[in-house]
């Protein structure tokens, strides 16, 4: 018994007395607010306020280069103009082409690479790092050096194509041709971001426990069947997540494409974000571009929302 007593006494002595309210001064709730306030203020200042301001401007004739002009309410005029504008629809088509093909290629190649790397062969860590390099570069750097790679006279890309197909390297211009330019930007983006998709897919594949494959093997499932009934369904949420990230990113793609083609030739690679920038900061149609920005935002936000819901359904299976 004395043992227990001394233990209890020691425990009591070792416990510091509770801090009195006066010492703490602030209540838990106040402290919580103090900690999150800076984030909330920053968010309000640089995210929420501009968003609301943009919504307001989208109903006015405001132009940033003529700040002294009286602001008048134009109602839904800009929205009607935008949805009826062939220029905007061309930009949307270019964007859709870019987003669709980059996602398709990146998912297929990225998942394929992840599947190969997952086999844990000798030096797989080294190869993973090598594959990840493009993703670590700045889009500005990538845009600039692919411009050189695509050079018809000195470009390595044209040379490589000619080496494998025998076509004269200066007979085609990846960035200068109306037909090829939309594919040129797809190739660069795929080159740059496939590693990212691979990384997420790899995480998905690594999350599948090995004993499930062993169980399947004992159950006489062929490698083919194991892939379709275990690997793919179990990695699917990860693949979908990668598609979501890449989809949102590429919907607002700007920097790399501006550096590569500047939207040309003509406006074949003029993505929605490039059109938006031109309207806002070259034509200074601030009201119009605000409305355009809101339309793009609602489109991405809506699509992403529907997608996330599907993703959650898949995950719950």
């Amino acid at each position, binding site marked *: 018994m004395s043992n227990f007593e001394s233990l209890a006494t020691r425990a009591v002595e070792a416990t510091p007395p509770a801090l009195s309210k006066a010492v703490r001064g602030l209540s838990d709730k106040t402290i919580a607010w103090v900690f999150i306030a800076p984030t909330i203020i920053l968010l309000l200042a640089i995210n929420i306020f501009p968003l609301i301001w943009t919504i307001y401007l989208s109903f006015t004739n405001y132009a940033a280069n003529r700040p002294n002009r009286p602001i008048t309410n134009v109602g839904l005029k800009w929205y009607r103009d935008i949805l009826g504008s062939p220029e905007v629809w061309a930009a949307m088509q270019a964007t859709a082409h870019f987003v669709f093909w980059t996602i398709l290629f990146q998912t297929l190649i990225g998942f394929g690479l992840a599947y190969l790397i997952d086999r844990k062969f000798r030096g797989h860590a080294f190869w993973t790092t090598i594959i990840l390099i493009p993703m670590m570069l700045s889009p500005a750097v990538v845009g600039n050096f692919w411009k050189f790679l695509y050079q018809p006279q000195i470009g390595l890309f044209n040379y490589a194509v000619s080496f494998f197909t025998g076509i004269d390297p200066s007979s085609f211009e990846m960035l200068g041709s109306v037909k090829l330019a939309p594919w040129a930007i797809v190739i660069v983006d795929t080159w740059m971001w496939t590693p990212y998709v691979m990384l997420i897919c790899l995480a998905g594949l690594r999350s599948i*426990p090995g*004993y*499930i494959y*062993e*169980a*399947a*093997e*004992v*159950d*006489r*499932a*062929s490698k083919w*069947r194991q892939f379709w*009934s*275990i690997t793919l*369904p*179990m990695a699917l949420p990860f693949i979908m997540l990668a598609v979501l990230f890449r989809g949102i990113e590429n919907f607002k793609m700007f920097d790399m494409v501006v550096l590569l083609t500047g939207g040309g030739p003509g406006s074949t690679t003029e993505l929605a974000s490039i059109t938006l920038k031109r309207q806002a900061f070259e034509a200074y149609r601030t009201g119009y571009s605000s409305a355009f920005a809101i339309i793009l935002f609602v489109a991405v936000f809506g699509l992403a929302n529907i997608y996330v819901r599907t993703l959650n359904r898949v995950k719950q*299976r």
Partner: protein
Amino acid sequence: MAEVSIKNISKRFKSVMAVSSLSLDIADGEFVVLLGPTGAGKTTTLRLVAGLEKPDEGEITIGGQGMAGLAPSARDVAFVFQQYSLYPHLSVFDNLAFPLRSPARRIPENEVKERVNQVAELLRIPHKLANRSTQLSGGEMQRVAIGRALVRQPSIYLMDEPLSSLDAKLRADLRLELKRIQEELGATILYVTHDQIEAMTMANRIGVINEGSLIQLGSPRDIYENPQSIYVAQRLGQPQINLLPAGLLPSGKLPAGTQTIGARTEHFDIQKKPNGEASVDWIEHLGDQNRLHVNLGERRITTLIAPDSNLKSGDRVALKLVRPLCFSASGERLG
């Protein structure tokens, strides 16, 4: 069903000898349990039979057929893993049907349905067939995992601690069911566990494993009553066998060379005596039985007593041993 024979198999993982020249024959329809602590090589033995690992030496035959070099899918075995290895995106029905739908088997769909329903009936989960496998409780998941083995009707069922991740009550229920199913089907089962109750209640024969070697093989009763070494004696019986130096307690005539005496509850004769050499330290009341902890000098002896015994903490008692188990200095059983 078929008999399985394991001859002198060895398996080494880098510097660890997981299984060393282990031999075991399992008769058709027999339930053999490999019992041993974690890392004793039980699971490796099972995986060797399944073909999930390749033996470094020795051979395995199933139904008289050599298994060397055959992939798991080519051996007619079913494996139940310790983790619920269900296919998470499939329904319970599809999980159970998975092995039957292998293109290698080509079983018509109506027969698949029939067999899945039969097994579901056997495991008492027919109302769960439409559920997603992730919507099941632990016990149900493991039933499905066992069911996935049962639909196959293979030569041998290999089970790797299938009940260890369940709670005590479910474990007791499934233990009984598994034994019932095994007897109904006449299934040959090689079962691995570290739980002595599972081994005692289900096995036709128990093989006690230590450091990759089979130390003793026999019926549960035989292993319990006639352990050939201290190691085996310690594996069975609750509370664990008391090991005492020879001569500490009056015990009648002992075989020559006895160094250690092993005494379970049935080997003690305990009398309340005011000048007894031992004192009762503590009594644990477990309801149907009481656990008695006795201090004998420096040593502590744990045994069972009847709940109606009038002993209480602090009482002096005299201990006598009745035909205890005797072991030599090296831990071998004597006489």
